[in-house]
């Protein structure tokens, strides 16, 4: 295995620099925490950036109510161990208040609904910077993101009119009501994130490792048949397989992959040899060719 870590070191230095710029340039930053590997990596970077002081901003989780129980458990333990502040806002509340309508049918997901809850929370707390774990290698619209990405009063992304971003100078000047989405790990690939998790020995939720799970097959993808969150037709047969998850978004849009990678080093090996992209197992991107861009325009992470 390649133990040369110089490229991961330079990515880490860049991310720490970005974290510090956020703390210095904004009054009320927040780190958007999903419980996934990318946001866990962000937390690690934030802790390193401000040591020995504590992280000068809270974490916020927009809970769809459809999370893997393992990630919620993990989240609560993480913030407790690190002494971080956690804010949780629930999509269920937005549904109950009639602000959004639950989708129905086979492909029902709460992933889209998150945006409303997120924008409301930004307004409620007057956050002016939201740090997210999106990476440019994930998806073709994300490849176009700046590191500091300005959103208007409606949280929208004006993709055809982004600020130039030169050298490593980050311009965080905004008007009242606007906010900036910040992506410290923009230049990381999926493999970089896993290599970093391995190198730093970072703990991650168990669903990222191969485990036995009751699943069913649809559209060539493997869906969890546990917890009853993903809609399943009666004729869709439940099987037991060794699987793991490559991303842990909302359960209703995250498919599993067959795997026997039970340790970080096995996962790193598996990713290195993988011939399908990470978001290949995300049904939310498959809704249409430009699904991600449309969601981003509306204020999605």
């Amino acid at each position, binding site marked *: 295995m390649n133990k040369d870590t110089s490229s991961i070191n*330079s990515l880490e230095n860049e991310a720490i*620099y970005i974290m510090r710029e956020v703390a210095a340039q904004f009054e009320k930053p927040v780190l958007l925490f999903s419980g996934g590997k990318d946001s866990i990596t962000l937390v690690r970077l934030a802790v390193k950036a401000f040591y020995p002081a504590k992280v000068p901003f809270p974490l916020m989780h927009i809970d769809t109510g459809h999370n893997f129980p393992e990630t919620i458990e993990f989240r609560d333990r993480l913030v407790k161990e690190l002494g971080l502040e956690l804010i949780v806002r629930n999509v269920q509340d937005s549904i109950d208040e009639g602000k959004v309508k639950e989708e129905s049918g086979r492909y029902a997901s709460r992933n889209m609904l998150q945006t409303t809850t997120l924008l409301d929370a930004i307004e409620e707390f007057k956050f002016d910077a939201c740090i997210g774990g999106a990476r440019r290698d994930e998806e073709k619209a994300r490849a176009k993101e700046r590191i500091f990405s300005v959103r208007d009063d409606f949280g929208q992304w004006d993709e055809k009119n982004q600020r130039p971003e030169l050298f490593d100078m980050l311009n965080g000047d905004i008007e009242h009501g606007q906010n900036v989405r910040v992506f410290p790990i923009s230049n990381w690939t999926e493999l970089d994130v896993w290599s970093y998790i391995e190198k730093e020995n970072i703990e991650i939720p168990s669903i990222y490792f191969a485990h036995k799970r009751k699943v069913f097959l649809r559209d060539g993808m493997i869906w969890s048949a546990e917890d009853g969150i993903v809609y399943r037709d009666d004729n869709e047969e439940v099987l037991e397989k060794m699987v793991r998850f490559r991303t842990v978004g909302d359960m209703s849009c995250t498919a599993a992959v067959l795997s026997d990678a039970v340790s970080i080093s096995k996962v790193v090996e598996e990713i290195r040899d993988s011939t399908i992209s990470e978001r290949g197992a995300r049904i939310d991107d498959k809704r249409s060719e*430009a699904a991600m861009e449309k969601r981003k325009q509306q204020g999605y992470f």
Partner: protein
Amino acid sequence: MEVLKIATAGSVDDGKSTLIGRILYDTKSLTSDKLKAIEDKSEQLGYDYLDFSLATDGLMAEREQGITIDVAHIYFSTKKKSYIIADTPGHVEYTRNMVTGASTSQASIVLIDARKGVIEQTNRHFFINNLLRIKDVVVAINKMDLVDYSEETYNKIKADFSELMSKRDYQDQKITFIPVSALKGDNVVNKSDKMPWYTGDALLQHLEDLDKNDVFNVGTPRFPVQYVIRPKTEDFHDFRGYAGKVYGGELSVGDDIMVLPSKTRSKIKDIYFYDEKYQTASRRSSVTITLENDINVSRGDMIVKDGDLPTIDKQFTANVCWMDSENLTVGGKYIVQHGVNKVLAKVDRINHKINPDYSGIDKEATSLGVNDIASVSFKLNKPIFFDQFKNHRTNGSFILIDPQSNNTVGAGFIQ
């Protein structure tokens, strides 16, 4: 593993996005689902070939219009290097996005359509690459398949371009010519058998062999203070650390330093990276420094080695790339962001506008329009601590922010 950052350049439709897609395809860097998406879309658009530009043109508007609007950052690796390629737009209207992509790159690929040769936008992009002092430039003469892989055409374009080169300011820039067909894959990843007259390497091989050149870091150490860390906890009651990134050179424990602008002297006590102490902070590392003496240091101050000072001044002259649709005018007020330091600035003089084809300068200019490049003198309300861009890439550059719109409206290179 070594990281190489590259940007593309060249006029609209010269084949930049296609070239990158081709590199991804031939190095098997496209995952099966991404390749499938390109196949499906190409078929839907009625092409009888794979349109590789779809690998990078990710926005709806780009895919509809078949042009690139904003930079895409693309990642792939070989056994030897990991590459970050910025695919930039060729369209004049989006030149600011081209500069964005090029500003962090170590090498650049300037594409030329073999049927069209050197045109205005080629000049402009080459000029910007030279202004940015990008060390290695590949001039890829593309679409050779459409000119029968003609050596004559290639030589003609090479001669035209060489004329441009001879006038460039930064003469140490290394320039290499390669005839390619991005669409067919000739001389991109694999050496072509259609151009036996070309004896050089294919593009990727050339990139693999580029020297590791640390262009961002030549110069003396500069440490702009980004953030002051004061934990005020029991264990770290009196801890006062200065967080920032080291540029230009290294800093070590025990170094005699000076804090600017106060010119207070002290010594480096400790260098932290997270909870570990180091003897030396290497270039481009994001560290936290503590000093022997309790002095007042805040964001925007700069720590430098004693006796190795930058220029400290309330005025300077710089080459400016103007990027806004509103003109820059004499007397106009802007914010200069120099590293992490922001100061108010006033345009004192426009010395001259520069024609990007090196055909001369315009001394009469009183304002700058979008995409203009000019030598401009500024007056500041507070001193900044700078080096010349040619001696210090990070400490010699800045951006201009319009205080009304908050937009980044220009980039500058201090002379």
